[in-house]
């Protein structure tokens, strides 16, 4: 076990795909109750880091500990306590939103009461209303994203790993999802997310890490980063750091 409040501990993480080094010697810590943001351009290595945390990929070298468990040797013990939202997560076309949520809830919860409660919570989070009973192939891109965010948060995971949670959502629904994420953290959860939207990250995250070409270049609270670099927003901060 690691320190009491550390939910994620990553040390010297390296991930290679053949000749390509996607993540190069990354170290970071995420504390309980944090919303930790990974910021970087496409191909920076954010998704690979999140996939390793979600126990989908194995590190080439380095150490990853999630909730006190080794992410390589004890992946099975980690999975009940985390949930992962992939950037391009799809849906089962021929299931209704409610059916899908119920199937997932039954996987996570042993009692039907708990599963039903989770589904109701997810329907509320998604804001789909009566459309939740329609087949998911009739959903718009935004609706599919909302049902997936709802699926990821309804199980009340100790660590929610969200890859671009508001991608494809309009401003109203993106705001709604940000509020849901904030509430999840207030209720005791921890979130690690990636995003292209600097405004969103600045609003939502307690700490961020700038990821570029597989490296973490800078890490800290948004306000502290801006102060330290003497810039007015995170976008400027990112450009300043990556152009060094």
């Amino acid at each position, binding site marked *: 076990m690691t320190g009491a409040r550390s939910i994620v501990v990553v040390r010297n993480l390296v991930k290679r*795909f053949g000749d390509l080094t996607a993540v190069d010697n990354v170290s970071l810590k995420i504390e309980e109750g944090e919303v930790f943001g990974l910021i970087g351009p496409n191909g920076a290595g954010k998704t690979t880091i999140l996939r390793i945390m979600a126990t989908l990929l194995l590190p080439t070298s380095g150490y990853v500990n999630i909730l006190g468990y080794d992410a390589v040797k004890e992946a099975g013990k980690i999975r009940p306590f985390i949930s992962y939202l992939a950037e391009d997560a*799809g849906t089962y*076309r*021929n299931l209704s939103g409610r*059916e*899908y949520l119920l199937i997932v809830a039954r*996987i*996570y919860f042993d009692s039907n009461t708990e599963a039903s409660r989770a589904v109701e919570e997810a329907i509320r989070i998604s804001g789909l209303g009566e459309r939740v009973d329609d087949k998911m192939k009739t959903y718009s891109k935004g609706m599919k994203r909302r049902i997936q965010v709802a699926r990821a948060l309804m199980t009340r995971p100790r660590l929610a790993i969200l890859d671009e949670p508001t991608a494809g959502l309009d401003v109203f629904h993106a705001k709604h999802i940000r509020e849901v994420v904030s509430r999840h953290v207030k209720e005791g959860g921890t979130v690690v997310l990636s995003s292209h939207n600097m405004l969103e990250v600045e609003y939502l995250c307690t700490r961020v890490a700038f990821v570029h070409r597989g490296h973490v270049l800078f890490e800290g609270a948004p306000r502290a980063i801006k102060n330290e670099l003497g810039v007015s927003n995170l976008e400027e901060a990112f450009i300043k750091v990556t152009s060094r």
Partner: protein
Amino acid sequence: MRKLVSLVEKEVKDLLRDPRIYIGLVVPVILMPLLGFLMSTSMSSSIEAGAKGVKIAVLDYDKTVLSNTFLNLSMSLGADIRKVDATDLETAVDEARNLGSNALIVIGKGFENDLVNFRRASVEVYIVMETMSLGSIGAYSAVEGVLSVSSKIFSNMLISKLNPNISPDAVRDPFNISTRSILKDKIIEAPPQVLFNQLLMGYSIMIPLLLLMLSITVVQFAATATAVENEEKTLETLLTFPVTRYDILLAKLLGSSILAVIGSILFTGGFILYFNNMLAMSGFNFPAGDFSQLLPSPPPESFILLAASLILAILFVTSLGVAIGALSSDVRMANSLLGVVIVPIMIPSFLMMYGDLGTLPLALQLLVYALPTSYPIMMAKDMMMTPIPFEAILGIPYSAALTVLVLYATSMLLAPEKLLTVQYGLRLRGTRRQRVRELENQTTVG
């Protein structure tokens, strides 16, 4: 168990509602009986039209009392007899055509003389083939029927004239032959060709065909179910749930198998209706009676062995389907890869359906023995006629071992790291090939 049930529910619901799947399930049930009905209706109507009111033109060179008796007899049997008056065959044929006759019968000169002297009299029959349809066959059957009955009546007359005290049948057909068949240790009151028809249809063709359909259906369902997960990007999420990859694999195997069984039942229903429609058609003279009651029952252990080999075969092909689906980025790619698996499954089945395994070249025999899908067919073919061959029994542990191996390999493939890495590799290879092709095109154009 709860997790597995939820995953199986997801598989069945998602597959069953997929138009690509349910069209495949429902179409045979509607199409096959419809096909049987349409075929039998068109064939029956053609045959009936040919047989009903058959018009026969007759060129009587003999013009005697007996030739006239023959014509009157034919008319009393329902034939529409029109006499033609011609000096040669060519003119007679033209006249028969003009009269709209289905056939021309030429009674040779000396017809009566031959008959009264107990020699065979010459009757030539010409069937007018206006179209290449079953109507011509119906006309031929009708003419043949008239001639056969007339011939028998004449024969009775002649035999009675020789000796009124003897039975004409005893002279015409002196042997009263009754053929029976011996199967294993039992004597069956039916000739071998009747049993052969039933055995061939039931055990050698129908069961292997159904097994083949089941195998193809299940491998398609499994591959599609898994490829859809890749295509819709749901597999990645599924692999982060608190379920083991064995649960995911088992759910896919069960889900695909449940649907394949439903599909096979529907296919069998459609197939039976097709055959019923075809057999109900007039003009088909199948031996009457259900001789299956007379056949010796296969030993009970042979059913157990058949069930075991069938389950193993289905597990084997389903695992292959899941592996193919897992390696495919979309359903289209999975369908392309399926051909690689389905063809080797089909070949041994057809080899065994229509041939004798022992007479095949060694290479083909090895191919048949190498596939777990061959053993249920082997069992089904042999369980009625002979003791189940030793190699078919040995096939069960062999199939079990191979199936476990494929299941293990497939479960390894479902490990997220492997799956994502293999797919990444395949995508990279595809991109590289495309890039090379683009460069080649650019070079050619330049």
